[in-house]
Structure formats: C-alpha cells, structure tokens
C-alpha cells in the first residue's frame, strides 16, 4: 500500500540526550528503515533536551517516541523499537 502512495513516510523520533534508550531507538530505526523502507522515508530526530517546547507542541510524554506524521493517520510508538515486525505493523507500512 505504501508503494502505491506517492508521498514518502515521514517519521520523527523524539529522544532526550544520548541515553542508552535513545541511542538504541536511533539504531533500531535506522536498521528498520534501511532494511524495509529503503528510499521511501524521511526521518527526523528531535532532541527534546534541546527543544523541550516541541514536546509540549507534539504531546510527547515518553522517550523515545516515534511519530509517523505522514501519511495520515498519525501513529505513535514509544519504546526503543526493538521489535521490527511490530514497528512495521504499527506504522502500517509494509515492504
């Protein structure tokens, strides 16, 4: 389905500093994207330690949080994204 859609998947990963959980999430996300969503995604990593107002703006409570902003509907995943299959299911993107 994602293949049909012309718009790329826009993902925002919110982290707070370089904590083990944050680093694990970044690592896991990179792996998922390169293995399953090659060329069809845009990833932005936001460090809330530097920009706490964004947490308020986007309603972020837990760290790390991955937000799929596009395509709608918005989905949120919290945690270090250690289960690739679950992440893909929740992002509603398949290979």
């Amino acid at each position, binding site marked *: 389905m994602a293949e049909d859609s012309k718009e790329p998947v826009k993902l925002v990963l919110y982290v707070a500093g370089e904590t083990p*959980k944050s680093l694990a999430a970044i690592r896991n996300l990179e792996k998922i994207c390169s293995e399953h969503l090659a060329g069809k995604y845009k990833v932005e990593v936001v460090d809330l330690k530097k920009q*706490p107002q964004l*947490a*308020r703006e986007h309603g972020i409570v837990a760290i790390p949080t991955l937000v799929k902003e596009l395509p709608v509907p918005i989905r949120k*995943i919290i945690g*270090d994204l250690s289960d690739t299959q679950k992440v893909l299911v929740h992002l509603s993107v398949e290979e």
Partner: protein
Amino acid sequence: MTDGITKSATGIEGFDDLTLGGLPTGRPTLVCGSAGCGKTLFASTFLFNGAKLYDEPGVFVTFEERPVDIIANVDSLGFDLQGLIDRSQIHIEHIAIDPSEVAEIGDYDLEALFLRLEFAVDQIGAKRIVLDTIESLFSAFSNPAILRAEIRRLFDWLKQKGLTAVITGERGDGSLTRQGLEEYVSDCVILLDHRVDNQISTRRLRIVKYRGTAHGTNEYPFLIDEDGFSVLPVSSLGLGHKVYEDRISTGVPDLDAMLTGGGFYRGSSILLTGVAGSGKSSLACMMADAACKRGERALYLSFEESEAQTVRNMKSIGTDLAKWLKLGQLRYIAARPTFYSLEMHLAMMLREINRFKPQLVVLDPISAFTGSADIAEVQTMLLRIVDYLKSNGITAVFTHLASVQQAETDAGLSSLMDGWILLLNREANGEFNRELYLLKARGISHSNQVREFVMSNSGIHLLEPYLGEDGALTGSARRNAEARARRAETERQAEVARVQDQVTQRRRRARAQIEALNAEIEAEEAELRRLVTAEEIYQQQSREKTAAVARGRGMNLSTGTRKQD
C-alpha cells in the same frame, strides 16, 4: 524535619488554620478522594490563590480535563484563571495520552514528561505545581513497572526542584488511592470524602498524615459553593471566652423589666422553649429587631419559615423587619434541615456568621434538627455553635419546640444556656392562654412570676399577673377575677361612703345639740346676770332708803366720811 517545616498557605478558608499554615513548602501533598469530591477544585484553589495572593506562580498539569474546561470550571467560582495565564502566573500543561494511538515497543521512560514539566516550571518561575491526576498515566501505559519507577522519580524530582506540589488521586478499594500513590508521597496526605447519610450528602476533609507538624486530626466538614472551597474547623473551642457586662434589651419592655436592670447580658445564650404557637419565633424576632434598633447586625437562621413569611407575620404585631433587611442590618437565611447534613449546616452557619459578623444570631428552631439526625450529633453540633458564638461575644437566641410543657429540651442543651424563657400555652376553663416564665437568667435577678404573654398589633406585652387568693390567673379567668374584684371594690367604696355620711350627719346633729345647750346655758346665764343686777339694785335702794330714814331722824349713823359729804 531538621529545622521545622515551612508552610505554604493555600488561601482556602479554614484549611490554613487547620494545618497551622498550609501545605508543606517544597514537598508533595497527596489529595485523594472518590470521584466528585472536590479534589480538582482544592488543587486549583491552591494554585490560584498561590499566584494571586502569595505571588507564587504555579503550573497546573492536567492529565484529564482540557485547559479550557478547567478555566471554565473555576470561572463560575470567580477565579479569573485566564487572566493569570495571560500574565504568565499560571500555566496549564495538558498531558493528553490516547492509548489507542500509541503502541509500546521496547523499553521507554517518561523523560519527555519531565522535560515538559521542567520547561513549564522554568518558563514562569513556578513555585507550585498541581498534578491532576497522575493516575491517568496508568491507563495510558501498559507497563506498570516502568510507570512506578518513573512516578517515584517524578516525586523525587519535584522535591529536588523545591516545588510545593498537590497531587490528586482517585480513592481505591481499601487504599487511599487506586494505584497506591500514597507510598510515594509521605509528607502530607489529605483525604476528601463525600458521604450520603439519610439521603443527605456531606463533604468531609481529613488530614491523614502531615509529617513533622501538628495538625487537626478530626474529620472536618467542608463546603463547595459559589464562593469556592472552605473548610470549617470548629471543634477546638474552650471556655475562655470574654464576659460582657452590658445588658441588651430583648425588645419587649415588659420582659426587660422582669430582668432587673433591663435585658440579658451581651453574649448570652438564650433559649426559648415552648409548644407550637406559643410565640417563640415572634419573641426571637423582637430580639433581632431590638438588636437592629441598637444599630447592630442580626443574623436570623430559620429552618422552618421563609423570609417573606416571617416579615409578614411580624408586621402583624407591629414590627417591620423589612426595613432592617433593606438596610443590611438583618440577614435572613432560610434552609430546611434536610437540605444539608448537620455538619454542612454547621459549616454554613459558621461561615455566614464569620462573614456577616452579627452581634446577635437567632436559630429558629433547633428542634428541627432532631428529626433529621441522631440526638447525640445534634447536641454536638449545637454545642459547637454555642461555643463558637460565645467565644465571639455574639448573643445567641435559640428557639426550641417542645412537644409537651416541660422544662427540658430534647437536645439536652439547657445546661449550656445562660437564659431560658419558657413559653407556655395553658388550657384553663375552655381557653388557651399564652404565658411566659423566666426559668433561668444567669447572673441576673429576675422575676419569678408567670406572666401572661399577649401579642397584639402594638407588639408583645406581658401583663401583670392577677394574684388572687386562688393563685395567679390568666385569660378570661383573670378578667373575671378582676371584674369581681372591681365589683367588690365598688361595694366597699359605697359602704365607706355610707358610713361617712352617717358620721357626718351624726356630727351635724351633735353640733346642733351642742348649740342648743349652749343657747340654754347662755339664757340661764343671762337670767342669772339679770337676777344679780336686780339684787344689786335692790341692795342699793335699800341702803339709800335706810340712809334717808336716818337723816330724817337726825341720827348720824354713817361714818365721818358720810358727814363730810
């Protein structure tokens, strides 16, 4: 606990007295209670007053309600939250989590929540924070182990930041909060309760724990109404009240006269007992009217009659209460005893007394409560009221409806009272007559008479009793006896007049007799004088005759003097 606890005032009426200053500064306080018991209101009042009265900005962290709703909710209580938000004194941080759009995959923490709170706190320089209610997080996240660790960290963080925090929690089964929040908050725990007994609800507040400070431990009733949240600590009252020397009129001159020196002492508690229709309320109104006439304020708490009805009824005995109501010297509050529970009534009354600051308070009637609650509770409540009024030097007038003519109240209040007026309504010879008796007046010598109590359009009068041979009489018996007495009097007066007449006549007769005798004596004396004169003349003539004879005989019978003639 090293050098005592500093406290932050909440500005909630009564609560700061209860806790001797407010909530512990820089520490979290848990406010728990079941749904709808006023937790959020307590928290928002704490925050609002902090920003407005004590210049301590605050952050309201809401996990449930939207900021617009919170602003609208407290707006009805006169809290201009929006204004404070505009002036950056309050910030509402809405933490909304919709579990349906969030998936949990792997390990996480709530660092973003901390960052948001920190950001909000730093933004306005907050000293106070409210978390309402953090337990919502448990429904938003599925891993309780992480949550518990994070909440513990959150409370540590709050303490570290030195924020005076109020955390609300929903009451759970067998524990103070559903999620056991009390294990994290160990400094101060306040329990709000909302109970319904006999279909009457009562809100109560209890300080379960307040580490490092003395505090009241009872359950205290509290109110939520158009004026917000108020707690009424009303139990710790002693007998060290001030005593007044001046007397105040009862509004009935005849009654004042029965109390030597005119009226009761200021600050007395006066009980008016009587059967139905014996004039208790009217007498109480007269006292209130008298207070207003002295330029004082009177508070009339009625549990049976409405304001308009009392005003109308009092007009019929020549007392215009409407005037005082208009001038604001009299405040009339009517509420059925069943409107609230006893504590709520007490709380309401004390608050009204506090605000209106009257010199005289009327409770009409206290017997209305005995129907709606346990006697012991009623007694406690009245005791508190009496103590409270006494300690504030407020004269209290209580009316009590007695079912029988007895010198005893159901509420067992008699010994608390300084003055006790018994109003009787006695049947004699086919008619009922109102009577008044001063059963007790502490420190005042008073009449022991039972007076007839008459209400007319010129007010209340106490008639002098008819004290005949058959005892004191009232009503038509008195009138009859008086008439009889008047008749007897007239008869006696007539008798006196008659006797007087007799005496006068006799005196007149006696005088006439005296005069006659005098005249007789005078006549006799006159006769006597005439005889004496005649005798003298005779003697004279006889002497002259003898002399002439002697001269004729040439005999000088007379002396030389005669010769010389």
